[in-house]
């Protein structure tokens, strides 16, 4: 069961890792509870930076495709196959799109929306 990344591709390396792991889950080559290599092992084998692999694993954990259990290792989430279909980035764009439509309908300019968005991101309140 191998994973291949293309160093010259336009797609970021961590995205390639995420896509390939999700594909293996969907194809049932990676099944619930299976262990994955450690960040260090995969980074060394693919000659990548540890942070690249760590980012891919963290995003897969956020999407409930993987479970990182500290020193015990990283495992495929019990609901990984179901969660592989969930695309958080697509949902983000749809939600933001609806919000921007509402704000424009209220008469706000794009510059005001942009400043307001930046302020919300920088605020500790949210």
């Amino acid at each position, binding site marked *: *069961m191998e994973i*291949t990344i293309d160093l010259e591709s336009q797609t970021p390396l961590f995205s390639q890792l995420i896509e390939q792991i999700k594909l293996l889950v969907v194809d049932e080559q990676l099944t619930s509870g299976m262990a994955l290599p450690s960040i260090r092992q995969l980074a060394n084998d693919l000659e990548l930076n540890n942070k690249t692999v760590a980012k891919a694993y963290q995003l897969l954990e956020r999407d409930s495709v993987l479970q990182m259990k500290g020193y015990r290792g990283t495992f495929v989430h019990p609901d990984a196959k179901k969660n592989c279909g969930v695309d958080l980035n697509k949902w983000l764009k749809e939600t933001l799109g609806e919000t921007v439509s509402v704000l424009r309908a209220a008469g706000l300019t794009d510059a005001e929306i942009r400043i307001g968005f930046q302020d919300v991101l920088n605020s500790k309140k949210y």
Partner: protein
Amino acid sequence: MLRSELVFKMFSIAKNIKEEIMIDNILFLLVFLGQILFGSYFIPQKILMRMAQVCKKYPPEKYPKLYPESIDHYYRGQRRYKVMNEVVLGIGLVILGMVIHYDFSNKENISEAIPVIYFFIQFVPLVLLEISEFSYFKKMRNADTRSSKTANLQPRSLFNFVSPILVLFAGILILTYIGLDIYVNKDIHQFTFDWHDKTVIRISNIVVVNLIFAGIIYWNIYGKKLDPYQASVDRNKSIAITVKSLVSMSVFVSLFLIFWESTDDLGLDKYQPVFISLYLIAIIFISTGARLKSLKLEENNFEVYKGEAS
């Protein structure tokens, strides 16, 4: 009659003493000769034969990725290794001659440092070969201009490559030796930690040696792939052989040191040089000989080295 009997008895005693000295010395000569030939002739010959076999079966015309440098560079390296071992073999035979001449004519006990010092000399060509191998793999990685990288998603851990029982046994033996050394050589109630103390030095040595083994094992399992083309199956095989070899060496070192502690009490101290030399032969076998035996060329995937050179 009485006088002649007395003379005869004294002559017999002297002859027995001389024979007794000769037996352990002769035994050492034989074993040390074995160490010289095994470590500086037999094993290097096997390594050189393996190198020649690779060049013959997998030539650069068909397997260019295996040769980041010209084949002549490879042949020069082989010749250097061969000459170095011939020199070390010569040194060994000279030392043997000096032992025969000096120790026998002076009826001295042979120093156990002789086989140890020679062992370090014997390992020099092998260490240099390992260093050149690192440089060789680095050149292969630099020559590898493939834009895609592949990795196996199977996690690797220590117990994938060696039995947990063997590792546990190695750990128990280390602790047994440490406990035995303190028990035999020190009054446990008066034991104080002092870096100049021989017991502390011996214990530190065995701990450091095992930590080095552990470091090498860790690096083999989790470190970067040296050969960029090596198939994962072959890499795992190589890791397994290395890990088992190092854990076996740890077991053997501890067993030997435990035995060594008892040689004085068993009256075997005059055979200590023999035991040291036998021990070193075993170390050479476990570290290098077993690896050569286990890693069969025909079981490796050399197809990965085919194609156009990068």
